[in-house]
């Protein structure tokens, strides 16, 4: 009950990630927020630190067969498979819409091959609405590319270097948790020119319907997200933040402002809210409000003071 710090009414929430100046550290997680349009009736998008779009590839991808989701204890599996209309349609529809919303746009980039990543970025270079790229080398739901690039150092570095050569814009690389040593991969992409890393993507998992004896997902395996994975995500953020110099963006099971604080303490400079959006479409601003309230209650003047402030 005792008040350790002077009470401040509004903390400075600004953070800088990969050269991007964000009004606060709360971003959306790719694939859980589409391009924001569906959420615009529930929240004021301009309150967010940034919107990260659904993964975009060069041509349209049809994604996987249905069923594509299954619920698990405190989590969910998805095997959407990066269904998207391709970068051309994305620019015409989503980017155009987003560019009027007064929020930085981070485009999540997918590819089946190294060249495809580069060509998507090249196409996006002419779009002024793009603030940064998040390169997804960690999707467990596609057969070629996706996670295959993110589970060993050399391909992870190769994708990063190739994209780096194609753009001067801030470059975030999104890492997979399905690895023995995530710090090693983080170092490899840092050395290859990433300005920041985001982690974690989903954990590869599976669900079975005992009654029908069939997998719950048509694709059999899928990506696990939600509160169930928070302990793993938090551990990886903590490990990676100590292993590299560029900023870390924390993702995985964030539902509340307190969860976001935990990720910041572990070393994340910003956070992304994913599955929580499905549970409560106002989750992003709820997380932001919770974070603000925490700062006020604890007399935190700058939210960036929390970054890596875990007392071990």
């Amino acid at each position, binding site marked *: 009950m005792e008040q350790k710090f002077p009470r401040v009414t509004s903390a400075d929430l600004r953070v800088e990630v990969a050269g991007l100046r964000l009004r606060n550290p709360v971003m959306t997680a790719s694939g859980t927020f589409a391009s924001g349009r569906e959420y615009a009736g529930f929240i004021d998008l301009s309150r967010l630190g940034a919107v990260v779009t659904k993964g975009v590839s060069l041509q349209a991808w049809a994604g996987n067969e249905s069923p*594509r989701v299954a619920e698990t204890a405190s989590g969910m599996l998805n095997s959407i498979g990066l269904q998207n209309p391709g970068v051309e349609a994305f620019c015409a529809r989503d980017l155009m*819409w987003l560019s009027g919303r007064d929020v930085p746009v981070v485009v999540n980039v997918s590819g089946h091959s190294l060249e495809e990543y580069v060509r998507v970025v090249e196409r996006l270079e002419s779009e002024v609405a793009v603030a940064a790229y998040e390169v997804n080398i960690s999707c467990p739901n596609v057969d070629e590319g996706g996670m295959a690039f993110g589970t060993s150092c050399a391909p992870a570095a190769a994708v990063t270097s190739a994209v780096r050569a194609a753009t001067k814009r801030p470059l975030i690389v999104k890492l997979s948790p399905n690895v023995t040593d995530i710090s090693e991969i983080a170092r490899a992409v840092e050395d290859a020119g990433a300005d920041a890393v985001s982690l974690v993507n989903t954990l590869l998992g599976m669900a079975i319907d005992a009654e029908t004896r069939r997998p719950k997902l048509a694709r059999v395996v899928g990506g696990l997200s939600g509160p169930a994975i928070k302990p793993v995500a938090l551990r990886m953020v903590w490990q990676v933040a100590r292993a590299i110099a560029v900023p870390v963006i924390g993702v995985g099971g964030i539902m509340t402002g307190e969860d976001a604080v935990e990720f910041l303490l572990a070393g994340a400079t910003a956070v992304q809210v994913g*599955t929580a959006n499905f549970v409560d479409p106002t989750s992003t601003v709820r997380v932001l409000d919770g974070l603000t309230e925490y700062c006020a209650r604890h007399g935190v003047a700058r939210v960036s003071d929390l970054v890596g402030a875990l007392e071990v």
Partner: protein
Amino acid sequence: MSCADLDAGPHPLLERVEVLANDRVGAGVGLLALRAPRVAAAVAPGQFVHLRIATGSDFLLRRPFSVHRAHGETIEILYQVLGRGTRELADRARGDVMDAIGPLGRGWDVPESAGHVLLVAGGLGAAPLGMLAERLAARGVAVSVAQGAPCAERLVARELFESVARRVEVATDDGSAGEPGFVTLVSRRLLETERPDLVCVCGPEPMARAVAAQAAEAGVTCRVSLERLMACGIGACLSCVVTTTGGRKRACVDGPVFDAGEVCWDGAEVPPRH
């Protein structure tokens, strides 16, 4: 598709709803009445709400339920107890609050020109047809109903249908009410004898598919309400796709009601339950 197109329709609401009543109305079937003034005012037949039944993280996702009826500030939901979510729902009592997103999706869209509509309901497929039957009857459209269920105890909303339809015919798998057998026997006959202008179907996907084929054969336009597993319910996650002649569409915003002619029946329906 233009931006305007995608923005079409009023934005769904997030509403705090209160349980007014929750009664058992059949074998494992409950009827939930919710005070939901804003959703009740906006909902059209065939639309649904996405309910957050519990607030813990144990089961995380919302559950989609058709709005069975709407009157005044109240919406009614007809639900079957299947798993964790619906078991929990059955425990809710008067005064409990939850939150709902709705109204969601595209409903039945009956053209002005339709003078006679045949509704085909399989099991809980009756749920999204209740409000449709009422509104059509109110608008002076003739309504016929073909209804099927495993047994008499699962023939829900029968009184509603009987009060507004000019003809209700029934089939049960075990013969405990109406004809023994599948509802498709009844729907085939009614298609011939009643000559409707439109068929609206909801039920297990193989049944919906069979009725769609009957309608196509009879040269009658057919609309089907499809179920898919849904995470977001608002068009953002792509978990609920239906393969159509126009590509993969989202059941939650582009459906759940589709024109039967555009559906590629790919067997991706929700697995049947026991």
